[in-house]
């Protein structure tokens, strides 16, 4: 048979046809490979003797890693590293804080300072350190077994803690909200606060944020955990004594002292306790709201409560509530204002500073509590903040990326003085 096609063309056509067959025959099916990674907390069992016998080591200053809470005392700034210890910084010049020491306290969560004595938890124990000379910090007291809820077996002295662990799997039953997936609860660790304690009862207290879970009032140290408040007598600062345990329900988050009263923020509302007898605080009122996360700050007439809708906070609202507390037995809601992602807050005179999470920092004039929504003064967006202390020299703000200080001598215009960033 004769053809006028070029032989190379025929060869090409044949090649192409065979190539097409090779391509078409195996069906073109998409492949999906899925990996599921989640953070969970693996239980770690520790014998109490192992950490009681180990020395608490004071190390030279180390960079911040996962800052938890802030506390100021005199010219010193304390930044906790939950589970690891406490950084001590010289904040004489807020524009240039100096990292002095790191107090290595495994299993620590919170702190408070009274008369140069630093209180911090060490798993089930409460420790007291003499910090009058920051160059030479001394452990002066270990009050044992005061946080017994960590015990898995009190008789054998075994406590259980949970270690954050990343687990990666390609098993499809590890998909989020599949049955059989281990639960995680790392968000709990993020609960923090903002408040400030004025010196009272003749003792000089430091000042914690609104998300503090340790607080001092009337010669007593109050600590709150998930379900209860514990009371310690610290009238002799070097020798804290455990007194009692008060059941508070569930989801307790923050504690804020003001004029002889304790304001306790929980996931369901705000509890007010009369601490005029500091050893035996009495419940005066509970203001209940929808389930949400909420630190509290107060002044003479009003309480400011933030509600946040993080998943762990059971999806409430993102709001600032202003309550009338002139009658402490009957707090009433005056007004609520929508917010972005409110965390801790701080009050200084007529100005309210609000940490808006990844939305930065907002300042409001709250002289007229019915018009706060229209009195936004500044909104600094390029920060991630969770808690605030309006300190004597600077406004100190903390977030997962580090600690920043602002000059707020002109409350209408914040000026950044310094930022200490985390190491990574």
């Amino acid at each position: 048979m004769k053809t006028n096609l070029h032989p190379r063309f025929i060869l090409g056509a044949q090649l192409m046809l065979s190539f097409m067959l090779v391509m078409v025959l195996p069906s073109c099916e998409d492949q999906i490979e899925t990996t599921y990674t989640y953070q969970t907390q693996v239980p770690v069992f520790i014998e109490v003797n192992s950490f009681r016998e180990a020395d608490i080591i004071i190390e030279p200053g180390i960079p911040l890693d996962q800052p938890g809470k802030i506390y100021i005392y005199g010219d010193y700034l304390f930044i906790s590293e939950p589970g690891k210890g406490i950084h001590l910084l010289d904040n004489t010049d807020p524009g240039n804080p100096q990292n002095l020491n790191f107090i290595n306290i495994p299993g620590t969560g919170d702190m408070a300072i009274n008369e140069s004595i630093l209180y911090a938890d060490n798993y089930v124990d409460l420790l007291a350190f003499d910090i009058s000379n920051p160059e030479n910090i001394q452990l002066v007291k270990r009050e044992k077994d005061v946080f017994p809820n960590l015990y898995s077996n009190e008789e054998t002295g075994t406590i259980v803690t949970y270690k954050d662990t990343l687990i990666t799997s390609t098993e499809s039953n590890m998909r989020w909200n599949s049955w059989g997936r281990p639960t995680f609860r790392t968000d709990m660790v993020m609960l923090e606060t903002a408040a400030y304690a004025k010196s009272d009862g003749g003792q000089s207290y430091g000042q914690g944020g609104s998300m503090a879970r340790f607080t001092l009032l009337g010669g007593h140290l109050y600590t709150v955990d998930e379900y209860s408040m514990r009371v310690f007598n610290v009238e002799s600062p070097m020798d804290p004594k455990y007194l009692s345990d008060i059941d508070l329900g569930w989801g307790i988050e923050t504690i804020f002292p003001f004029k002889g009263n304790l304001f306790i923020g929980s996931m369901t509302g705000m509890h007010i306790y009369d601490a005029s007898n500091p050893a035996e605080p009495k419940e005066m009122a509970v203001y209940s709201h929808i389930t949400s996360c909420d630190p509290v700050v107060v002044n003479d007439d009003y309480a400011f409560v933030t509600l946040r809708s993080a998943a762990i906070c059971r999806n409430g609202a993102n709001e600032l509530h202003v309550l009338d507390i002139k009658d402490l037995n009957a707090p009433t809601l005056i007004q609520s204002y929508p917010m972005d992602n409110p965390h801790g807050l701080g009050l200084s005179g007529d100005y309210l500073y609000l940490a808006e999470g990844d939305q930065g920092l907002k300042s409001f004039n709250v002289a007229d509590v019915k018009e706060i929504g229209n009195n936004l003064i500044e909104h600094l967006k390029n920060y991630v903040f969770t808690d605030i202390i309006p300190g004597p020299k600077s406004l100190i703000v903390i977030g997962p990326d580090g600690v920043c200080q602002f000059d707020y001598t002109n409350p209408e215009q914040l000026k950044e003085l310094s930022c200490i960033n985390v190491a990574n």
Partner: protein
Amino acid sequence: MKNLYVLFFIAFIWSCPLISKGQDLSFVNHTEIGLLTGTDNFGPRTNFTFQTFNGLQIHRKHHLGFVTGLDQYGNYSVLPLALGWRGVLNPQNRWQVYGGVDLGYGSALLEKVEINEWDQHHWRKGGRIAQGSLGFRYKTKKANFWTVSVSLKQQISYFYIGNPARLSPDRKRMEDWSYYEEDKVTFNNLVYRIGYWF
């Protein structure tokens, strides 16, 4: 990844006719539209594709250049950035057989991070692209060409779902997420295209 971008940039500059001074090398553009066909979890799929090859004729039968365009898989857009080769078997004929190979990266540049009301983050990342093509081109009177081609195209993409464990989580740091799901999706396509070559 960075090297790949540098390579693309060099290829792009090199293939730009105004910059390359080699007078023997003539500029070539080959623009095609077509259909990506394949099978996903839900059955057969057909998606739109557009691609344009810009390059230089370095030999009577060979062309090298830079390939870009758009692949639209449902609501997911991929911007291909690839180096390409085109070879013509019989340039002396009116009907010619040609082949091509493209290698590069499919970028999810056009995709945005979505955060739902439960604060769950969804985002996408591109990946490797490899394509082999065979086709015919038909010479017009102006010595330009109409083309039809069939290709096998593999395109990798990564889809992510994350539940943040902290504020402003870093999408590259797994510790910042309480839950982090990565779907590596390999799109295997049989592609039919028509195009114009000058």
